[in-house]
């Protein structure tokens, strides 16, 4: 018995907070929906939040851990939604419906999105920073245009694809189960040797290559996994809505996902989950609260909050205020921890805490400054 207690105490709980949190939410709401006490609006909200969380975690792999800026995540989601919706439609024609149809659609949608993730990952091998960002944005627009101009029989054309719907009461359970799958893949990937390789590429690509990391392979791997989960989110979207219209997946949507990742903290999965929840909740609530003439105020408030939060979180001048008054410092004070050692784990590598020689702004921009070193074998070759 005592051995069991020791074992229990030694579990690194931090590693499981995400699973426990999501499972608790899932459990509570499953009980509530079985008791039939959840209104439609809450179910809708839960579905939206679940989809946002999957998107935020999956984009977090590319932006937070691989360090590449992607503005086309909605494109992968669009592919997942259309392909998944179409698969479900074809399956219902041959009589397969319900959970099996959903699972098959998820597999097909995720695989198709993964293939496109591979295709988008290819230019990522040659391009950096903003150049890659515009390519992903371009990809998203191309996908959108292609689906918009499809024929009515294939993908519904500009009116969108009508999709079979899943039982409204239980769809969120499936979405949250997929969040758990997504979490299991991401967290274990990040902690594995492959994940270390991916973060090493983020911190310093040249050094990573020099230590024998196969940069090509790992960059593609990150893009493929990220795209596959965006595809899963897309399939969920197609089951949650009666029609899938390509116009919903414009670059504004990609940017909304990026905002979730950045506000959650780069390379921080828990942060991504929290910010996805808060942002989606705010979005839905503001939409329902502000109706009629006030509806236009929603975007205004949202934009204002966004700018203020980003400035508060990042302005160098506010560093002192930030360190003094943040959630982490408060919780540390409650649990009487020393705040400087308690959270410095390596897999939550923040940009500013990871010791690198190339500064992050140089990595993300194209103009990496050429630093003249004393020993420069190529010096004669230049100008």
């Amino acid at each position, binding site marked *: 018995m005592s051995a069991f207690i020791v074992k229990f105490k030694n579990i690194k709980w931090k590693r499981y907070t995400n699973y426990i949190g999501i499972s608790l939410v899932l459990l509570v709401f499953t009980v509530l929906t079985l008791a039939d006490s959840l209104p439609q609006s809450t179910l809708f909200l839960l579905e939206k939040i679940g989809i946002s969380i999957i998107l935020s975690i999956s984009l977090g792999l590319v*932006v937070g851990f691989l360090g590449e800026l992607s503005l086309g995540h909605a494109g992968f989601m669009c592919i997942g939604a259309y392909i998944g919706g179409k698969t479900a439609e074809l399956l219902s024609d041959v009589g397969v419906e319900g959970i099996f149809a959903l699972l098959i659609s998820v597999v097909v949608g995720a695989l198709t999105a993964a293939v496109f993730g591979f295709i988008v990952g290819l*230019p990522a091998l*040659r*391009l*950096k920073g*903003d*150049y890659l*960002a*515009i*390519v992903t*944005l*371009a*990809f998203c*627009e*191309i996908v959108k*245009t*292609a689906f*918009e*101009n499809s024929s009515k029989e294939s993908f519904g054309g500009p009116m969108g694809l009508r999709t079979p719907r899943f039982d409204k009461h239980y769809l969120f359970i499936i979405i949250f189960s997929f969040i758990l799958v997504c979490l299991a893949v991401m967290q274990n990937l990040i902690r594995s040797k492959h994940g270390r390789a991916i973060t090493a590429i983020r911190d*310093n690509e*040249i050094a990573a290559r*020099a230590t024998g990391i196969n940069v090509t392979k790992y960059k593609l791997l990150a893009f493929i996994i990220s795209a596959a989960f965006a595809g899963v989110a897309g399939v969920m979207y197609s089951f949650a809505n009666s029609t899938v219209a390509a116009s919903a997946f414009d670059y*504004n949507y990609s940017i909304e996902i*990026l*905002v979730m990742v*950045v*506000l959650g903290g*780069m390379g921080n999965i828990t942060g991504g989950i929290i910010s996805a929840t808060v942002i989606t909740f705010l979005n839905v609530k503001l939409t329902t609260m502000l109706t009629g003439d006030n509806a*236009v*105020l929603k*975007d*205004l408030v*949202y*934009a*204002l909050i*966004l*700018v203020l939060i*980003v*400035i508060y*979180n*990042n*302005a*160098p*001048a*506010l560093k002192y205020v930030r360190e003094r008054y943040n959630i982490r410092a408060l919780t540390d004070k409650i649990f009487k921890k020393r705040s400087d050692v308690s959270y410095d784990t390596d897999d939550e590598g923040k*940009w500013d805490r990871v010791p690198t*020689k*190339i500064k*992050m*702004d140089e990595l*993300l*921009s*194209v*103009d*990496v*400054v*050429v*630093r003249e*070193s004393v020993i420069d074998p*190529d010096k004669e070759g230049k100008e």
Partner: protein
Amino acid sequence: MEFLLTLINGVSLGGIYAMIALGYTMVYGIAKMLNFAHGDIIMVGGYSIFVFAATSFGTLPPWVSLLFAVLMAVIICALLGFGVEKLAYKPLRGASPLAVLITAIGVSSFLQSLAQVFFGSAAKFVQFPDLGSLSLGELTVSYSTLITLISTVIVMLALTLFVKLTKTGRAMLAVSEDREAAQLMGVNINFIISITFIIGSSLAALAGLFSLMNVPFIKPTFGSLPGIKAFTAAVIGGIGSIPGAMLGGILLGVVECFSNSVPTLAPYTNAIEFAILIIILIVKPTGILGKKRREKV
């Protein structure tokens, strides 16, 4: 003849893109940030023209009222660009570029929703004096296209001369080359960044005018698509390079007009433009005129 007309229209549209792209590229070169709110400055310029042209149209002669509206639009946009930089971007100088990018996105959506609050989301018609068109044999070119073309050429010449010959312009080049070294040489960084935003935003106001002359309707998302296209143009030409932005803009405009003139390709115009971007970047990762800098650990 059809070909020549499409070409002229394309170059004229490309001129508009180039003007917007210049704003992106200059801000990128000097402040090292992607100003996603740039497209919405065009929209603000368009609405200023809409308001001032409507109020002064009956009382003043048409040409004077148009010039007055354009002047006001340029002033408003310049002030807006200056203000946005000071309020939203300056506090983040030195922070991670992604934070600045998100702020720019926030500013963009703020400006759009502000326009929606004031003017509603429906498209508004903008009254312009009828300029007529010029006939050269079989070729009929509208004066608005010609004005766009000529103005683009003048603006680009002026900008090139400004950057090459004046002290401020050379300081801008120096800052884009190496900000810290420029500072040590006595260049006032804050002033240069402000000037960059003011020039970029004034060009956006002009671009707004010329877009309105082509299609005289304005709505809050008026600047989004031209903004994205111009950003694409700036990247095609090599972001940070002024001649690159001009080249990329004109290339994109010509492609767009030719693609739109073929009925089967017309729905796919946007996709074609973005595909060209991807192909060019795969062949030449820093854009056509972008400088390749070597990278070291």
